[in-house]
């Protein structure tokens, strides 16, 4: 039976977050997209946030959401305590204000304003859901018996987003936007990964299913087909603000769907699990570029980074990252764009 009385951490999720290194950087979301996924997984960042205090507060807040504590209340009752989304938002707003943040002019209250409600919600939601997604990914794949008995995943159709992908908000209300739908994304991911069994199952049943070891999950996370709102992970959420999740399918179900032959052996995805949780040693050099960028920023009289200052280090960092990956690829003989086999994950 589930236990709600003695909360203990979702270890894998908490570890994913706890091991992230706060990376202050002036890069915007488009520029962050150019950075290799392994580095992003190991970093806690938010577009154009240079202030380490803010990043630390985000990490602490999300950790509290992931891992609520217990408190003895008067009368002997135990209560679960920690941030709920509203109190997390308030706490971060207060921290950001205390750090002297000023929103870019004309951007107050928008997603580009770090202090805005939508931006803070996005930060907390994305970091929480990504840590939990990483935790589930480890639980689904790291144990050979689990992979053997539950070899496949289904990308579920349940969507509780206010505006689900595949629809868009207009003055007349929600209208269909099929080109941006998850169906279109799944089809692009199938094509990108070349998973014929998953393709056949989709055509026969309409279900978005594939083996855990299929490349379709990485393709979906990488935004195959040209989407740019992806989170670069082979686990959900695959894109910002997405409420779509996966569930495991048993061997019987996978065989019935034609993903496996009867009794066929299965493999886990080729991934070094520890790479989810730590910054690869070789990437430290790249991270120092970020650190230097933060150190070089103009500061106010109290020594705090002036947040609105723009220092575009992105091309240098992106080039360095690409160069680094190319060097590693040459050294280890892997394709630089193949994350599963990439030396950063070894």
């Amino acid at each position, binding site marked *: 039976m589930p236990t*709600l009385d003695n909360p203990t951490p979702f270890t894998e999720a908490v570890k994913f977050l706890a091991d992230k290194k706060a990376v202050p950087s002036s890069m915007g979301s488009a520029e962050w997209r150019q950075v290799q996924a392994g580095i992003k997984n190991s970093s806690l960042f938010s577009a154009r946030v240079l202030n380490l205090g803010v990043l630390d507060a985000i990490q602490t807040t999300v950790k509290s959401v992931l891992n609520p504590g217990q408190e003895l209340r008067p009368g002997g009752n135990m209560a*679960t305590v920690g941030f709920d989304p509203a109190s997390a938002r308030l706490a971060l707003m207060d921290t950001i204000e205390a750090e002297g943040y000023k929103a870019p002019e004309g951007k107050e209250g928008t997603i580009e304003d770090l202090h*805005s409600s939508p*931006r803070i919600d996005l930060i907390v939601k994305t970091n929480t859901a990504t840590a939990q997604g990483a*935790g589930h990914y480890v*639980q689904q794949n790291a144990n050979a*018996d689990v992979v053997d*008995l539950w070899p496949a995943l289904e990308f579920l159709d349940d969507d509780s987003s206010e505006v689900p992908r595949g629809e868009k908000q207009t003055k007349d209300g929600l209208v269909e936007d099929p080109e941006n739908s998850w169906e279109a994304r799944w089809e692009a991911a199938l094509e990108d990964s070349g998973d014929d069994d998953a393709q056949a199952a989709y055509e026969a049943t309409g279900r978005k299913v594939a083996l855990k070891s299929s490349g379709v999950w990485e393709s979906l996370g990488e935004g195959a087909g040209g989407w740019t709102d992806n989170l670069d992970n082979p686990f959900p959420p695959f894109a910002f603000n997405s409420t779509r*999740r996966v569930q*495991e399918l048993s061997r019987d179900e996978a065989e019935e769907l034609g993903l496996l032959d009867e009794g066929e052996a299965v493999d886990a995805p080729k991934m070094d699990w520890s790479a989810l949780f730590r910054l690869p040693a070789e990437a430290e050099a790249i991270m120092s570029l970020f650190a230097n960028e933060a150190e070089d920023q103009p500061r106010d009289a109290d020594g705090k980074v002036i947040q609105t200052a723009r220092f575009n280090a992105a091309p240098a960092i992106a080039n360095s990252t690409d160069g680094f990956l190319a060097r590693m690829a040459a050294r280890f003989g892997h394709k630089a764009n193949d994350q599963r086999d990439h030396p950063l994950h070894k």
Partner: protein
Amino acid sequence: MSQEVSIIDKASPELRRRMAALSPQRLNAAIGPACLRLTQSRLRGQGTNQRGFHSTQFWLQAADSASQHADADGTTIRVQKIGARLQFDGGTVVPVNKKYLTIPATDEAYGHRALEFSGLVVFWGKDKEGRIRPMGLKTDEGVERRGTRPGGKADRALKQLQIGTVMFWFVTETNHLPHPNVLPSSDEYFDVVKTAVNMALK
């Protein structure tokens, strides 16, 4: 009264061999994902709030927080979401270090703390015991919510409320009925465990 049950092993050698081969680890590997899938599916399937306010995705977050943990005693499913136990067990919530809890009265207030708003005023009235006390917070002119874009969707919705609209009620406690059906029943868990064990025995 006592009853003795004799168990006579009539299992075929093949079945005995297979059962012996089923280590606790493999058994947990069969049961854990089955129970987690059932739990998450039930949590995700809960409806939105009864008052018809917008969804804060509470149940999706509860499902995301669920995880499975195998140990020597078997598999445990854990749900790490603030408020989930209150929904399941029910109970009474009282303010801590404050006099009142604030209960959202409108869709615009739902999912937010009163401290996020400016331009709200306290209104007074008589409670059920006839005592005069602050009853809640109403909108006044220039009501705003921190961190929203002036003229944006949230701001416009707030500005459209009539002055004097009750945004939050003050209460000294809230009582919650248990909703054990937010999680599957023991029978439902048993069914998926049975199926999972059979699968592992194949």
